[in-house]
């Protein structure tokens, strides 16, 4: 496992404002908000909703598109497994902050599951924001020791003859699981396939089911 380094050298991560600065900024923003509300250019309801969306609801659609492409295009899948960062960039998804993406394919013999044991490193450009449980101490500690038990808690039963591999993320390496394409989806096209691929299956705690 590589060393965790969570300082992405982003000077904006920590607030080091003093109270006076904070108060002045708050007043400045409040003044603008009041003016815009008065002019009817924004509404309180819309503002609250937007805050919620951007803080909690950045969806994992990019990852689903990557997996769907891999399912329908064997050459793409090969490139994805060899160099996930470049293959994902082919689809136009960037925004990685120097981390490398690594894709792990689930097969009838191997089931992959991803964790970040030290904190919550997560491939956000492809999976959006991490779910709450991913960051929980219970998941981070238990999935390494008893992965099959944890998978059962997610309703995923992995047969004894299937090897379970647990991948520990770091600031440098982010994993994306390519779940198995379920039976009964032979007639679905790429974008229909993307619709059925849910976030948890790309973390490896669930399987994809046919619609």
């Amino acid at each position, binding site marked *: 496992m590589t060393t965790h380094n969570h300082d992405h050298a982003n000077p*904006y991560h920590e607030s080091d404002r003093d109270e006076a600065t904070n108060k002045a900024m708050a007043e400045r*923003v409040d003044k603008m*908000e009041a003016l815009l509300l008065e002019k009817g250019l924004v509404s309180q309801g819309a503002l609250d909703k937007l805050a919620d969306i951007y803080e909690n*609801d950045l969806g994992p659609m990019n990852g689903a598109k990557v997996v769907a492409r891999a399912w329908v295009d064997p050459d793409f899948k090969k490139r994805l497994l060899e160099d996930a960062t470049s293959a994902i960039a082919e689809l136009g998804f960037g925004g990685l902050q120097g981390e490398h993406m690594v894709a792990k394919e689930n097969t009838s013999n191997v089931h992959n599951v991803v964790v970040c044991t030290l904190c919550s490193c997560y491939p956000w450009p492809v999976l959006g924001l991490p779910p709450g449980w991913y960051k929980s101490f219970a998941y981070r500690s238990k999935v390494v020791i008893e992965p099959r038990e944890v998978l059962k808690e997610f309703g995923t039963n992995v047969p004894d003859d299937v090897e379970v591999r647990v991948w520990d993320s770091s600031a440098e390496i982010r994993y994306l699981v390519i779940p198995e394409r379920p039976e009964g989806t032979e007639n679905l096209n790429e974008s229909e396939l*993307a619709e059925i691929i849910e976030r948890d299956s790309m973390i490896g705690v669930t399987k994809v089911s046919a619609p």
Partner: protein
Amino acid sequence: MKEERKAKSEIAEMSGSAALPRKSGEMVFHDDWERKSFTLAVSLSEQGLFEWHEFQSELISAIKEAEGDDPNHPSRGYFESWQASLESLLAKKLA
């Protein structure tokens, strides 16, 4: 993935100096006014008062100005630059 992704990618995935502050993938707001300034800008662009790229250009210039000769020690934070950009864009649009 049955839910629609509601966050606009042109906003959520801005890159370079304009990239939204995130920690392990999550948007980071340290103080309430940051959240408010953020949602005001997004809401106004959704209402069509300006295109997102217009705001993004203002933001990039404002951050560059704050960085001066030393990008590691900007004279003000990301959201101070954000608010300044929004004020300057609004002054142009509402003039």
